């Protein structure tokens, strides 16, 4: 046999296990046009459903006339709230403990809200049917500003006001006003106020993290097929959490969970957009039940941008205190969170503001307090984690801006200010003032490496010269150096504090080894481009000693995959990756017993070596995992049942805390506001690195989404609640032309509690990238008195900053 003569090194390489840049197994089908996305699903007799949507942001619905629409050739049915009401499906629960209209029940609360669902033979007839539905609206006063909402007499959610005018508690406790959703607190209020009141230096700043959208290239959609003969509902869809969707569908439809099969096929990017449950899913299911035929619903791009899953929209007010030398003593943060017409945030139940309480960042801040007020407005619901763990992008942006503002207040270098406040390596595990226990980190090493690589001192000297030249009239270009040091909190999460709708946020892996030494592993997660089929096989290869190329990874079919909470918040590697390793170890434990039997020694006398068990001290005596697999099925071994399978449900003991150091060098044309990213350096520490090629790809992608958000991507509304950025003409998705090359680097600080020490990486570059780009823009103007300006830093807003600083005079 070949492996018997291969060196140990060759045997390791042959596995393509952890640490190697294995090429992706997914790519063959994608590069040949053979991916299978939800819109590729085509069933016999399949119908097509689409929505009549409200042109108004706030209006009462006087009447809906579907008669003309039903006469349109090819239209079979038009559903309204009245049709769903007898089924109890005109409203549905949101992930945040609120409820949301499936179809407008008497009024609409945001532009684009679903009013009626037209079911037709094809897309064309559905579109014609939509045009023919007549809806009479009575316009109501529109509120798009959360601060005004908190003062207005206008009641957005009449369903949340009792008949006597009192306000029943919401899902997260008492409400202060009829447009208020919740108040959420973390940390110590009084001590924080005291520290800040007595501090030598205090910096204060208000910042708005604008509303944006994950906007994956594939929009959301589904195909619902009710098989009335067998009583079984099959639902294909763009679901980042297929099992959770199955449970939710079961709970709201009354169909027993075993009779529902949810399938997430290939997904064309998620970034948080595909976590929630949308009216389209419910209406498709109902339409399939009503018509007895499969029904497909696919959003168009405008629907996607206007109605499903916005992100951010946080108004943040901070105070940070320090000694004169720059040692931070306290942090206070208040957030007014604009949640739109319904609270449909995708956060763990106990965290209505997600993990915003990671906002002390990478710094040893002894005292802190956070308060978040959620508010209803006439905007689309959502509040998802766009390429980040729950609200971590907001938190990191907040602290990385506060650090910059404090540096200005102290007249100090912002890199040095960070350095003297970092949590020290020896302080880990570190319990932060707002409650989280950071697992591991070595921030100083990462920071020093980053600063040295880019020649930070040299950059600052060049920048100073540029300022001189600018003042002397020799140039109209300024130079910004953006710094960002972030700590992510990912891998939600420990069931003791993380659940969504009561579903614990564990994850799972089930492994079946075939007799000839290949395997299939199924997980509760679902890849949307992360390459799970490649990387999870690598984890397993290293754990069980079978080549990754011999391991199939399968996800996304609830009939076959073990229960799991899906893929978002960088939780796949921290949670399902851990489950994979643990299930692999169960396989290995049984294999050890089989090997010992075959080698006629005691279990303790064999040890695992890459792809085999060897007799301790006699490496020439061994059984390969391939041989063991065959024996597991085909040899009667006393006391050991046949087969080689394992299941692991992994409830992580803690979150993981990846971190990184990013530096951006940017030139800014003061006269036009045009930016040019000259250099971007990204050092990531995601613990153990499973596949460096994929990590690098994730970093490039996350940084590009960060660039977009920082420099122009927004969902903007006018005062009437009209969405001003409904197509890709105005919603900024950068092309290859607008994006720079990135330099990537790393350090490795394994997670001490994760079975393989991995921490997750997909979202770090977004979380750390946004403040880095933003800080670069703002840093360029620091010498001229700039403290803070809000994103997005598009041309005109940068121009406005320059203009207000008198740089055009």
């Amino acid at each position: 046999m070949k492996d018997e003569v291969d060196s140990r090194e060759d045997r390791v390489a042959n596995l393509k296990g952890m640490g190697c840049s294995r090429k992706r197994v997914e790519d063959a089908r994608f590069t040949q046009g053979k991916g299978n996305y939800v819109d590729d699903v085509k069933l016999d007799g399949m119908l097509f459903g689409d929505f009549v949507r409200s042109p108004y942001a706030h209006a009462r619905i006087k009447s809906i006339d579907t008669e003309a629409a039903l006469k349109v050739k090819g239209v079979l049915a038009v559903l309204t709230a009245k049709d769903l009401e007898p089924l109890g499906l005109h409203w549905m629960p949101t992930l945040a403990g609120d409820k949301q209209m499936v179809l407008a029940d008497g009024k609409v609360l945001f532009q684009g809200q679903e009013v009626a669902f037209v079911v037709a033979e094809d897309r064309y007839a559905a579109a014609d049917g939509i045009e023919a539905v007549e809806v009479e609206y009575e316009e109501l006063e529109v509120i798009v500003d959360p601060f005004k909402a908190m003062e207005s007499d206008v009641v957005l959610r009449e369903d949340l006001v009792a008949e006597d005018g009192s306000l029943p508690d919401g899902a997260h406790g008492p409400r202060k006003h009829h447009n208020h959703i919740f108040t959420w607190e973390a940390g110590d209020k009084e001590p924080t106020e005291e520290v800040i009141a007595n501090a030598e230096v205090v910096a204060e700043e208000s910042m708005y993290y604008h509303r944006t959208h994950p906007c994956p290239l594939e929009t959301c959609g589904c195909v619902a097929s009710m098989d009335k003969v067998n009583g079984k509902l099959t639902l294909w869809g763009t679901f980042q959490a297929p099992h959770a969707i199955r449970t939710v569908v079961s709970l709201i439809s009354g169909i027993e969970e075993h009779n529902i099969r949810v399938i997430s096929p290939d997904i064309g990017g998620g970034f948080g957009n595909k976590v929630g449950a949308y009216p389209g899913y419910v209406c498709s299911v109902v339409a399939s039940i009503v018509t007895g035929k499969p029904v497909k619903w696919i959003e168009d791009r405008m629907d996607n941008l206007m109605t499903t899953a916005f992100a951010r929209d946080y108004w943040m007010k901070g105070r940070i205190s320090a000694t004169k030398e720059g040692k931070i003593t306290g942090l206070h943060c208040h957030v007014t969170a604009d949640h739109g017409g319904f609270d449909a945030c995708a956060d763990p139940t106990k965290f209505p503001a997600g993990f915003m309480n990671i906002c002390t960042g990478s710094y040893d801040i002894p005292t802190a307090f956070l308060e978040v007020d959620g508010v209803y407005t006439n905007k689309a619901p959502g509040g998802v984690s766009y390429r980040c763990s729950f609200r971590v992008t907001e938190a990191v942006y907040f602290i990385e801006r506060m650090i910059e503002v404090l540096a200005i207040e102290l007249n100090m270098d912002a890199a040095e200010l960070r350095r003297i406040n970092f949590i020290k390596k020896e302080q880990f595990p570190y319990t932060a003032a707002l409650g989280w226990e950071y697992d591991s980190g070595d921030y100083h090493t990462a920071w020093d490496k980053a600063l040295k690589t880019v020649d930070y001192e040299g950059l600052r000297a060049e920048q100073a010269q540029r300022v001189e030249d600018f003042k002397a009239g020799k140039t109209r270009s300024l130079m910004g150096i953006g710094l960002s040091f972030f700590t992510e909190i990912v891998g939600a999460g420990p069931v003791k504090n993380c659940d969504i709708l009561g579903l614990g946020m564990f994850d799972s892996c089930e492994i079946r080894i075939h007799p000839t030494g290949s395997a299939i592993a199924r997980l509760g997660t679902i890849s949307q481009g992360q390459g799970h089929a490649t990387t999870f096989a690598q984890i397993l290869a290293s754990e069980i000693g079978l080549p990754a190329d011999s391991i199939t990874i399968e996800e996304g079919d609830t009939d076959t995959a073990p229960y799991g909470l899906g893929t978002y918040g960088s939780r796949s590697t921290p949670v399902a990756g851990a489950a994979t390793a643990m299930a692999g170890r169960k396989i290995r434990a049984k294999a050890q017993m089989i090997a010992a039997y075959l080698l006629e020694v005691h279990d303790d006398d064999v040890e695992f070596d890459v792809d085999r068990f060897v007799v301790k001290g006699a490496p020439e005596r061994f059984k390969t995992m391939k041989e063991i697999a065959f024996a597991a099925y085909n040899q009667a071994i006393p006391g050991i049942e046949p087969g080689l399978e394992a299941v692991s449900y992994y409830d992580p003991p803690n979150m993981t805390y990846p971190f990184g150091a990013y530096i951006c060098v940017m030139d800014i044309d003061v006269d036009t506001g045009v930016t040019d990213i000259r250099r971007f350096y990204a050092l990531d520490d995601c613990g153990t690195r499973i596949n460096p090629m994929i990590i690098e790809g994730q970093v490039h992608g996350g940084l590009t989404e960060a660039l977009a958000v920082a420099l122009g991507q927004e969902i903007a509304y006018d005062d009437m609640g009209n969405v001003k950025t409904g197509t890709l003409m105005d919603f900024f998705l950068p092309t290859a032309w607008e994006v720079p090359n990135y330099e990537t680097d790393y350090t490795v600080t394994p997670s001490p509690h994760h079975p393989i020490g991995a921490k997750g990486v997909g979202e770090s570059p977004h979380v750390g990238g946004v403040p880095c780009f933003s800080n670069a823009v703002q840093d360029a103007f620091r010498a001229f008195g700039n403290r803070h300006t809000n994103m997005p830093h598009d041309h005109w807003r940068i121009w406005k900053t320059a203009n207000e600083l008198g740089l055009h005079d």
Partner: protein
Amino acid sequence: MIPAAFEYYRPKDMAGVLSILEEHGDDARVMAGGHSLIPMMKLRMADVPHLIDLQDVGGMSDIAVTADSIRIGAMVTQHDIIDHDGLASAAPILREAALQIADPQVRYMGTVGGNVANGDPGNDMPGLMQCLDAAFTVVGAEGERDIPARDFYEAAYMTAREDEEVLTAVMIPAPQGGYAYEKQKRKIGDYATAAAAVQIVKDGGSCVSASIAMTNLSDTPIYSEDAGAALVGTSVDDAAIKAAIAAMLGDIDPTEDNRGPVAFKKHVAGVILRRAIERAWSRA
């Protein structure tokens, strides 16, 4: 995004086009590449019961360059313009501008005729054609007539072309001197925040003629005669450029949109024009 139903026609000659136009009046629209019209139809912002596809009508896909003039058929695409070496040497501003329009795929389909005819103030070719003092040939039941580009645009989507007429060609007097097409946009595929087309003739260190037009800064392209005049007779020094910018700012009337407020657009228009003038002058 599904358009409303329409009747589709693909006539073989112009007589066929004109007879359909005559029959259906403003219920009919001609279409070349369709990259302006089809998105509008998909968004149901344009209602076109009768759609006339011009692709089989011959004689509109040629570029003819002579010593004193250039004729570009209406069906010539942006890609054709970029690809045409004779045109690039006779009127290099055309290539410079075309490369700044949309993206590669759209430039294969987007035509000169469509770009100048539909009157979208965001399109780049109308301002460019005004700068070059082009004339548009339109044909209707009454026959052919030429309309100067500088007289063609009346308001957004309103032009001097009658509903029953078809724009068939663009005639450009051979441009002289230095040129520049300068455009600021947010990203590939965007319309201009501000764009300037400049053509300058220099003789013995002074400017003998200058033509300036601006894009997406009013509801029509703006040919600023005064801006050009401000340069003539000068050495195109800072004072002359300032005067040209001031004249141009008097002619434009931008509106606020997602690209920014009016003050910003005016400022950028000035900056862009300065850069265009300086670049054109350096090439003159």
